[in-house]
């Protein structure tokens, strides 16, 4: 059990290492192949109006003349221990974890990321609880009443839920619930949980539902298929033969087994969303990580893009790790292998 956890943790660290190399090469290796020089890298910081001398000076200071591996090393080192930038006008210390400074705003990228995280985190947690509970409940009922009117209606609804993009459903919700009936907060509002939990939920309810609908539909279909499989298993027949109540047969014996694969995709989906729910955040004007990423990409702010990429990758890898460990807790057969 312990070796299993250690092995998975090492695997996760290796995965992050690979992601960091790929990210670095995409932004500092590939442009070289396309003809970029250290001076053009420096120009991104200085703006196009800077003269050649200033560019050379800046490229020197930021280490763009160093070999690639050294640049990568410095980048990683900065993330772990921080670094000092010498701009000529004075030394500026960038504390760990240092992802550098934005081209445009000169804000430390890390501070921006940490600022945006609560929004994305709030959005993800609320939506994931909604879609997990809703999707699994609908899926179980559909499986137990296979072929009934409820089953058909739910599965048709699920298909619609998967097919409708959040910028459509989100805008529809905003129009009706917020502007027509004035039931919820308008788009673009976000209140910190610590400031006012009620307002926090009020401002997030529509984004939660929009995001949850998308995934709940997939989870309902997934749960239904899993429950149909499981309820046909021999051990369900055994549970019935013992004289257990049907409720116990369905939950303790059926759902328990059917939930295992759902936990897996749930972990991955949550990890993915923590890196930013781009469409939903944009639709509702929530300044989360997804919004941040889109903005950085539009403005070609490389330090920001790299920072948010590593941030998102970190969540996916950690979610994966947690899922693996949960798997071992849930399914005793995994522990031995």
């Amino acid at each position, binding site marked *: 059990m312990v070796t299993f956890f250690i092995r998975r943790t090492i695997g996760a660290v290796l995965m992050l290492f690979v992601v960091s190399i790929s990210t670095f090469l995409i932004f500092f290796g590939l442009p070289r192949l396309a003809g970029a020089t250290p001076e053009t890298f420096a120009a991104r910081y200085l703006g196009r109006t800077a003269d050649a001398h200033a560019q050379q000076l800046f490229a020197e200071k930021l280490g763009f003349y160093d070999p690639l591996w050294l640049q990568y090393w410095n980048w990683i080192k900065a993330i772990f221990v921080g670094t000092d930038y010498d701009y000529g006008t004075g030394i500026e210390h960038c504390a760990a974890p240092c992802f550098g400074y934005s081209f445009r705003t000169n804000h430390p990228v890390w501070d921006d990321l940490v600022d945006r995280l609560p929004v994305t985190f709030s959005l993800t947690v609320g939506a994931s609880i909604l879609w997990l509970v809703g999707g699994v409940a609908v899926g179980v009922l559909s499986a137990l009443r296979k072929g009934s009117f409820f089953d058909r209606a739910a599965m048709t609804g699920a298909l619609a839920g998967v097919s409708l993009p959040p910028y459509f459903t989100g805008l529809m919700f905003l129009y009706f619930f917020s502007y027509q009936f004035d039931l919820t907060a308008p788009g673009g509002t976000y209140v910190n949980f610590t400031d006012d939990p009620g307002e926090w939920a009020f401002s997030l309810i529509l984004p939660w539902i929009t995001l949850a609908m998308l995934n709940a539909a997939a989870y309902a279909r997934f749960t239904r298929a899993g429950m149909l499989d499981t309820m046909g298993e*021999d051990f369900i027949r055994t549970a019935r*033969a013992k004289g257990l109540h049907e409720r116990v047969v369905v939950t303790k014996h059926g759902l328990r087994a059917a939930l295992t694969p759902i936990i897996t995709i749930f972990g991955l989906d949550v990890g993915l969303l923590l890196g930013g729910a781009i469409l939903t955040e944009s639709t509702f004007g929530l300044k989360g990580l997804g919004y941040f990423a889109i903005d950085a990409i539009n403005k070609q702010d490389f330090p920001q893009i790299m920072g948010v990429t590593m941030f998102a990758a970190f969540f996916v890898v950690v979610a994966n790790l947690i899922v693996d460990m949960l798997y071992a807790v849930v399914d005793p057969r995994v522990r031995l292998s």
Partner: protein
Amino acid sequence: MNTVISPRQDPTARPFLELRDLKIHFPTDDGVVKSVDGLSFSLERGKTLGIVGESGSGKSVSSLGILGIYHRRNANVSGEIWLDGQELVSSSPETVRGLRGKRMAMIFQDPLSAMHPYYTVGAQIIEAYRVHHKVSKKVARKHAIDLLARVGIPQPDKRVDDYPHQFSGGMRQRAMIAMALSCDPELLIADEPTTALDVTVQAQILDLMRDLQQEFNSALIIITHDLGVTAELADDVLVMYGGKCIEYGAATEIFENPEHPYTWGLLGSMPRLDQPVTERLLPIKGTPPSLINIPSGCAFHPRCAFEGRTAGASDTLVPELQLTGTSGHRVRCHMPAQVRQQIWRDEIKPTLEGTGQSVASMSELPSASDEQSEEVA
């Protein structure tokens, strides 16, 4: 309808278990699947009934039907099941659930898939016990350990916390039996209890089941396609084909004087160690019928070698399950009893036993169950 009861049954007394014309039909888009089509038999406490037949003959469905494990929406169940004076088909699902696992229990075929992979063996036995008895977990756990010890699992106080995948096949089947016995059931149904096991383990499990049946004096139904198992354990034998009983009688009768061509076929396709290896097995030609499209008349007629001797009745009339002889032996066949007995004596028996072979092997098999029935009685 004439009542069909065990030949050893006192007709004036109520049997412990009696099925009367049990039918389990499943309406589907392709037609009605007649899995069980008019099954009747009776069984006393302490006795064993072997139900024999090929896959898809309705054996397992009838046993699940007795336990009431079917969807009332999907299955049409008619007829009567009497368990110790209580009729089950017309009882509420909740009443039958209360009996299930308590007064009647089942041992399933493949113990690996029949046990839940996520719960320990002990937890599954404890669950079976506690659903019918209001006791603390501690008491139930003690009971589970006792049961595991009783079915011959070494170090039961440690193995009780193991998961099914940590048990060997034979041990899993023992644990399965322990689970079925947790509430001292009076009726025990074993569905192919040894099919998934090694041959050496099979014998141990059969021994165990025989011992336990004597200890608990329960009625035992063994469902199998293995005539060897039947010969080993059964007092009565019921042969099923196409959802119907086609031959029913005392085990000695069925093994010594079988009268249905299908039973002859089953006996002929059983490998025998006392025959020279050059002898070929005699498989039954053809395949079991689809339970949606059961052949008209006698369901066995397309595969029957003696179809021509029924004077054309084979595909038009469904034969009745009729008494033959005086020993309570019943057969569902168009041929007259004398003709059947003559075919068995002159054509089938010599082939099965090989020319010049003694009949010892044939009579040896049922003798085991004779001894057993004497012990029980």
